[in-house]
C-alpha cells in the first residue's frame, strides 16, 4: 500500500482548500460547500489512521460515520438559515448579513 503520510497529505490539501473557501468566498452557500470539504478531509484522516493503525477495531469507521451524521444535520440547518436570510434580506452574500455588527 502507499505510505500513510500520502493520505494525510491529500487530507491536508483538501482541508487547506476548504479553509481558503471559507475565508474568501462571498456566497454563504459556497462557504457551506467549503465546510463540507473540510469535514471530508477530517474523514479521510480518520479512516486512514484506522486502516493503518487499528484495522481490527471499528472505532475509526464509527467516528467517520458520526461525522456523516453531523454533516447532514449541519447542511440541513445551514441551508434553512440561508434561505430564511434570503427571504428577509434578499441576499445570500455573507457580508450583507451584518445585523449583529456594531
Amino acid at each position, binding site marked *: *500500500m*502507499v*505510505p*500513510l*503520510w*500520502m*493520505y*494525510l*497529505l*491529500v487530507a*491536508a*490539501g*483538501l482541508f*487547506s*482548500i*476548504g*479553509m*481558503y*473557501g471559507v*475565508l*474568501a*468566498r*462571498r*456566497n454563504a*452557500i*459556497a462557504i*457551506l*460547500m*467549503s465546510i463540507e*470539504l473540510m469535514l*471530508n478531509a477530517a*474523514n*479521510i484522516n480518520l479512516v*486512514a489512521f*484506522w*486502516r*493503518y*493503525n487499528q*484495522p481490527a477495531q*471499528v472505532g475509526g*469507521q*464509527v467516528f467517520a460515520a458520526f461525522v456523516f451524521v453531523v*454533516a*447532514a*444535520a449541519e*447542511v*440541513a*440547518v445551514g*441551508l*434553512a438559515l*440561508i*434561505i*430564511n436570510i434570503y427571504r*428577509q*434580506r*434578499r441576499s*445570500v*452574500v*455573507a*457580508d450583507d448579513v451584518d445585523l449583529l455588527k456594531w
Partner: protein
Amino acid sequence: MELTVESLVFLLFSLITLGGALMVVTTRNLFHAALFLMLSLFGVAGLFALLTAPFLAGIQVVVYIGAIAILIIFAIMLTPQVTAVRPTNSQWIAGVVVAVVLFALLVSIVTPLMSELGVEGWSAVFTEKNPPPVPADSMARLGEAFVDPQGYMLPFEVASVLLMAALVGAVMLVRPARGAEDEAPQAGAQE
C-alpha cells in the same frame, strides 16, 4: 514510491478530490461549484474504497453525493445567481496566505520531509506501509458495534436525536410565517 496499480489508483482519486475541491472554491458559477463538489466527494469515496472501508464509500456516495449535494443544489436554485460580481470578498489575499501557511505546516508535520532535511523532532513519523489486513467481517462488526450497549449504542441514539432535531429545526426555520400577508410589508421595508 514504486508504481503499482494501487498507487496509480490512489493518485487518480487524489487528483479528482483535490482538483474538484480547487474548482469548488474558485469557480464563479455556483451551480458548477456544486457539481465539482460532487466530483470531489466521489474522489473521497474512491479513497475510502482504497482504504478497505466499503461501507463508508457506499454512504459517501449515497448520503453525500445523493443527498447533501442535491440539497445544496436545491438551495442554489432557490436563491439568485449573482455571477457578475466577483466571487471572493475583500480578504481573499489573507485567505490564500492562511491556507498556504496552514498547508505548509501540515505538510511539514505529516510528511517525512522535515526529517529528511535534517530537522529532528519536528515531523511525526507516518511511514507505515504494510498494515495488517482488515478482518473479513469488518462491516458486520461495524454494524454490531453501533447497536451494542458495550459499544456505540448511546452515541448512535444521540446521533438519531440530533438528526431529528436538525430536521425539525430546518422545517421550523423555512416554514412561512403564519399570516404571511400581514408581514409582507414589514419584510419589504427591510430591503
